[in-house]
């Protein structure tokens, strides 16, 4: 690895200023993704800005009205093992639990995971289904945008130069029942070939509302709006499951990668969506 400067700001303001002044500088949190990219020479930054010395950027709060708020520096393991997350958002705990292995999850942060913009990841899919938002700060002011608008593509996000993701905000879970399915084509610790998040609200056997998100098959998690619309007001029979699966399979725009061909992923999505919904119902 090449030499680089390590800046260790104590406050968000300082960190944002450092990143703003040096366009090549990269923010470093858990390092599980960034250091791999540096090792491979994809980035050769002169300066890394270590965020870990900034206080108050980790931790998990829950409020029945506002929902869940997770500091960006909270480790993925801390998210999956938080009693609050496990109680109110078990699907999010599951999606975090399925990331890589315990050693990675202890290092990686939830903020870093989102800001990295890697489409082959589990938490973003579950969080888009939960309609989560992210707080983006320049140190002075903060703007909040939906995660679905934040994630723009493969390694592309809405972060502006000098801006940092400081927190993650998830609306109250209401009466969702849900699941997250990770599917790997290789080792079980691999990044997903496909990830499906399904949240369902049922009343007397009838679907009141559905959130269905397909992740990892295309450059960003995609909500299946047509399928959601189709499901509303219906009894979720085997035939409806088949139709929703087929619709998801039709709508996704998969890309080829080492985890599977586009045509394979398209077919896979149909199967997994059907299974995810069946798992929620049963």
């Amino acid at each position: 690895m090449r030499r680089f400067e390590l800046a260790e700001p104590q406050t968000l303001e300082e960190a944002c200023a450092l990143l703003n002044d040096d366009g090549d500088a990269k923010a470093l949190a858990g390092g599980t993704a960034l250091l791999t990219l540096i090792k491979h020479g994809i980035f050769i930054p002169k300066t890394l800005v270590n965020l870990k010395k900034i206080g108050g950027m980790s931790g998990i709060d829950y409020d029945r009205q506002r929902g869940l708020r997770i500091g960006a520096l909270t480790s993925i393991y801390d998210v999956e093992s938080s009693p609050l997350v496990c109680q109110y958002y078990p699907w999010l705990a599951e999606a975090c639990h399925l990331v890589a292995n315990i050693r990675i999850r202890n290092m990686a942060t939830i903020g870093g995971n989102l800001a990295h913009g890697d489409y082959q990841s589990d938490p973003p899919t579950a969080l888009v289904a939960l309609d989560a938002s992210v707080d983006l700060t320049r140190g002075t002011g903060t703007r909040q945008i939906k995660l679905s608008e934040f994630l723009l593509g493969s390694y592309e996000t809405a972060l502006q130069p000098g801006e940092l993701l400081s927190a993650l905000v998830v609306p109250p879970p209401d009466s969702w029942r849900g699941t997250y399915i990770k599917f790997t084509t290789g080792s079980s610790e691999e990044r997903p070939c496909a990830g499906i998040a399904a949240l369902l609200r049922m009343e007397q056997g009838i679907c009141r509302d559905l959130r269905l998100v397909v992740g990892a098959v295309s450059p960003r998690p995609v909500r299946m709006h047509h399928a959601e619309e189709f499901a509303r007001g219906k009894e979720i029979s085997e035939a409806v499951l088949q139709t929703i699966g087929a619709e998801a399979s039709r709508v996704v725009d998969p890309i080829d990668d080492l985890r599977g061909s586009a045509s394979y992923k398209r077919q896979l999505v149909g199967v997994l969506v059907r299974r995810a919904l069946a798992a929620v119902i049963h």
Partner: protein
Amino acid sequence: MALVGRDVTMVGGLAKVTGAVNYAPDLQFPRMLYAKALRSPYPHANILRIDTAKAEKLPGVVAVITQDDLHGLNPYFGPVVDDQPVVATERVRHVGEVVALVAGESREIAEEAVGLIEIDYEELPAVFDILEAIKPDAPVLHAQRKETTAGVHREEFNFQVGGNVCSVYHVEDGDIKKGFLEADEIIENTYTLPPVQHGHIEPHAATAYWEPSGKLVLHTATQNPSGIQEQLAQIFKLPENQVRVIVPLVGGGYGGKTHARLEPALALLARKARRPVQWVLTRDEVFLTGRRYGALVKIKTGFKRDGRILARQVEAFYEIGAYALNGPVNAKTGCYVSSGPYNIPNRSLTTYSVYTNLPPTGPFRGVGVSHVCWAYESEMDDIARRLNVDPVELRLKHLVRERDIFVTGEELISVGVTDCLCRTAEAIGWKGKEEQAVPPEKKNLLRGKGLAVAIKSTTTPTTSSASVRLNADGSAVLLTSSVEIGQGLLTSMAQIVGEELGLPFERVTVSSPDTDVTPYDKSTSSSRTTFHMGQAAQQAARDVKNQLLDVAAKKLEARIEDLELRDGSVSVRGVPDKKMSIAEIFRTRFGSTVGSMFGGYCFKTAGGLDPETGKGKAAAFWFFSACGAEVEVDVETGKVRVLKAVTAADAGHAIHPKQCGLQNEGSLLSGMGSALFEEMVYDNGQPINSNFLEYMLPSLEDHPQEFQSILVETPHPDGPFGAKGVGEAALPPVAPAIGNAIANALGGVRIRDLPIKPDKLVAALQAEKENR
């Protein structure tokens, strides 16, 4: 026996799990520099110009070597063919080839300097595919070749000249044409295997320095200290005692560290820098340095309707990358076992090692055997399905037995393969013919069981020497150049020496290799250590024992045959009062209770094959093994889970049963990875998944819920206490056992190209549906 056959506590286990071990990358030397390589970005190119001026001017850079620094050396080396340049000369033949090596005060400085070296290349046409490489108009990698004068017995290969075929090996039996003519049915298929990684946790790492006397010292993570010594002496034109190779504990090898990799260029760099230089590869550099051969195996079998297999023809092409390394050895070792551990009257077996512009290969656990085993064991199940007979019965009808004559013309001894198969079948719950029954339709999760067996040779003839030093206090050390690479020889060799000398386990230690001190050993490869070094160690200990008994016999006025050596003293059998401690024996012999008693032994196996006929003696001992697997296939997604697995190996006589079991388990996991998902992927010769994020090994989550290791024990007359090696034994049958289990789950749908990834299975199932 007091020690042999017992699961004593593994030596060094605690130090490893607590991180206390200093591996080669952890070593520090005064004034040590760090090396970094400039590597070729092209798969095939002429080097037009190298300018290192800017790099050399960078503060902190001490030396840079290129092709201009090779004067006065033997600049080419290799275990079989002298085709690897110490650093690239005039031409690069693969992405990642070392063109220059920099020594700097820090890793960062060395890396920065690498970026300042200017090189002009002229790209040449390159070839990557085995079948493309053997075409007459393919770009040729090595127009001229020189066989090495060091190392392996080169007379056993048929080297080719001209094209990219490096070597051909052929052996036959009976009359293959007649065999096929008499057959009722013939099946013929092609199987392929991609390159895969060894996956040793510790990367290649070494430190080199030159003593003022002109002696080269290397601390290196190698499986082969004697071979490195021999190779470096040849390159630098030094007597072997002017090259000292010291090996710390090695963090895994699996064949990846059997041959010289870093050492030649590093030694040259250290000589120029006049300081110690350390070179530790990054993981992506490991991917550019060694791997398992890719292969394409054509197999054709003729059989009678009554189940007799009459003829088998195999033609296997091993893709060996840009340099020969042990490619010809691999192809030879694969050749004579390519029809399996079976008696088949008519056979024609041919293998080729073929150069391509892919990064280099090297030995890999199971050498050439995994490739052909994948083909012949898949084929055995297909034949059983065609004949509607139990695949186990079909195998049992043909399996080699004790004293059968193998295709090489030699008599087989210590043949536990039938036991391996039968016990594995029982352990996996094999129900016979019905395991191949077509499953009921309309189920997403289908289960199937599969079995496979393997035969493998150990490299022959070879030599291992050992010496045992007994101290007057009754403690002993075994001096050996065999390497602890995680397999546990520090434990098993101490058991053997302790058993022979009647010493408690704790009183025996095993040295690390240091070629100034420890005697010659062929290498820690080919699963040969327990058998060869074990025998040398036992005999060296017996030498010491004889000296002790000799002294005691005179003093105690007893016959040697009546003496026994136990718990640190010699006594007359049946007369407990008449005894002498080791200290007393030392006093009697040397006049005081200090000094050392030395024993030594050089164990040499006989054999070798005639390269023209392929006949002779291929192996000092043979490995036999079996694997059984039960899988669950998700037919909608193509995902395969291995629910249960059994691996069996004939250990001869297990010195440390638990360590043998761990070898069987390691074989399973390694084989499972390459069966189901491991595959190195290249784009125009450039690896595109060269890290453990993109190329993943099986994790603990992938480990079958149920695993069983079986040790069959068919004692070998030449092994220490009857022991044979087990390290590689159980790996080759793993992939075909899993492949057979999948085929049995799916009513015969078979993937012949590894790995069996979900997309391939889904496509095969769809094709099957459309054909129906």
